[in-house]
């Protein structure tokens, strides 16, 4: 049988719009994490306001996504690959929205950190920030290009983030033990690390959902066997 001509589905335009919406949300979430990390490094009190404002926009986009998905399900009854795309968009937009929330939490922590003496530099924290931003970016690239290998590499990265978090915690705790004045900023920094780690987890979720989108099977909770 010869290959049929590529045919556009009856609501391909609507599916495209769903993807574009998701990409816009994702791009903004990535930027938010970058801003929050910059604010943290620069002890910039103003950053919190800007991060919050940018997060409001992501929240609006999430609401728009919910509406569009509901509409598509109600009116179009997508099936097979189209159904998986709609399902993916809904889940991923929820994850992306939460990335935004974590960025806001980081910004709030960094604002509170400015009231305390700065902790000595902890290289691991910057590295976690870089790692989770890369994971987020790669998960979204994998979505656009339907690249399952790339999605799997994101999932593999999550272990590295966990390792970095453990080292960062050890270092922070050792500062807190040495100097009581580091206790408050130390606690705050632990929150920052925890929020970053959650961003990594959410990027992993998105990557797992990309595999589902492409292959139609869930690889969640399968560990290394996936």
């Amino acid at each position, binding site marked *: 049988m010869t290959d049929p001509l590529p045919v556009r*589905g009856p609501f391909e335009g609507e599916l495209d719009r769903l993807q574009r919406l998701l990409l816009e949300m994702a791009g903004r979430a990535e930027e938010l994490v970058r801003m929050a990390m910059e604010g943290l490094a620069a002890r910039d009190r103003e950053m919190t306001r800007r991060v919050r404002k940018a997060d409001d926009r992501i929240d609006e986009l999430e609401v728009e996504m919910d509406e569009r998905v509901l509409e598509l399900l109600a009116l179009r009854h997508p099936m*097979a690959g189209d159904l998986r795309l709609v399902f993916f968009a809904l889940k991923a937009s929820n994850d992306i929205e939460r990335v935004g929330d974590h960025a806001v939490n980081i910004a709030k922590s960094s604002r509170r950190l400015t009231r305390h003496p700065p902790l000595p530099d902890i290289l691991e924290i910057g590295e976690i920030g870089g790692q989770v931003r890369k994971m987020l970016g790669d998960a979204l690239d994998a979505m656009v290009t339907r690249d399952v290998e790339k999605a799997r590499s994101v999932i593999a990265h999550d272990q590295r983030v966990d390792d970095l978090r453990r080292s960062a915690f050890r270092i922070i705790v050792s500062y807190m033990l040495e100097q009581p004045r580091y206790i408050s900023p130390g606690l705050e920094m632990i929150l920052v690390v925890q929020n970053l780690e959650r961003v990594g987890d959410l990027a992993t979720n998105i990557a797992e959902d990309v595999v589902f989108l492409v*292959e139609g099977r869930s690889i969640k909770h399968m560990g290394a066997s996936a």
Partner: protein
Amino acid sequence: MSDSSSERAAVPVLAAEDLTVRFGRRTALANVAIAVPRGRVVSVIGPSGGGKTTLLRAFNRLNELTPGVATTGTVRFNGVDLHGDEVDPVEVRRRIGMVFQQATLFPRSIFDNVAFGPRAGGYGGDLLELVEEVLDAVGLWSEVAEDPDRPAMQLSAGQQQRLCIARTLALRPEVLLLDEPTSALDPAATARIESLIHALRGDYTIVLATHGRRQAARLSDFTAYLAGGELIEYGPTEALFTNPRDRRTESYLTGRIA
């Protein structure tokens, strides 16, 4: 051979192997292999002219009534070759009943339409009881109980179709072949037939040919996709509709048919 119920359950009610049906030079079905499990609903979907009706008609030997038909391969019913010498086609059509797209009623009373088959078959029980039972099974008894002797043609299209199903049930079939049973009905009547199919599953094995992809998704345990006389894909309905294995099934389900 033992007749234990577990062994019986393991044998598909209907199984086609290498089934090819030609009408003159046109091939309507090509090398189809499909097994229909007992007590389940199997949907057959696919474009018009894809072979859905021919497959249903092959399951109760209706194709052979069409001049110029040539059938090769086998169809087994409870493990027995339907085309075996000792098999009586009339008995086949009693045990494997069929309902068509358009209600095909006799211009007689509601009662007579149901009673006709059992009477012809020399039914020995209480005919009135049987008619009431099967009309009740299709949800029609409460609607016609006051006057079951009125002409069947006075019923609405949806009621007529349910009457056709009742008439088939009156023959105590094992399998119901439903060929587009709702395509001539409005949404409310369609919903009634769909609930009926849902209620009959288990007691009967049902093979449903339908244009309605969503109807297949709603009703069936297994779905077969037939196109160009070829069985492209057959599997559990939830798998077929969320993650079809064949690209052609994907194209059909998502409306990307060239």
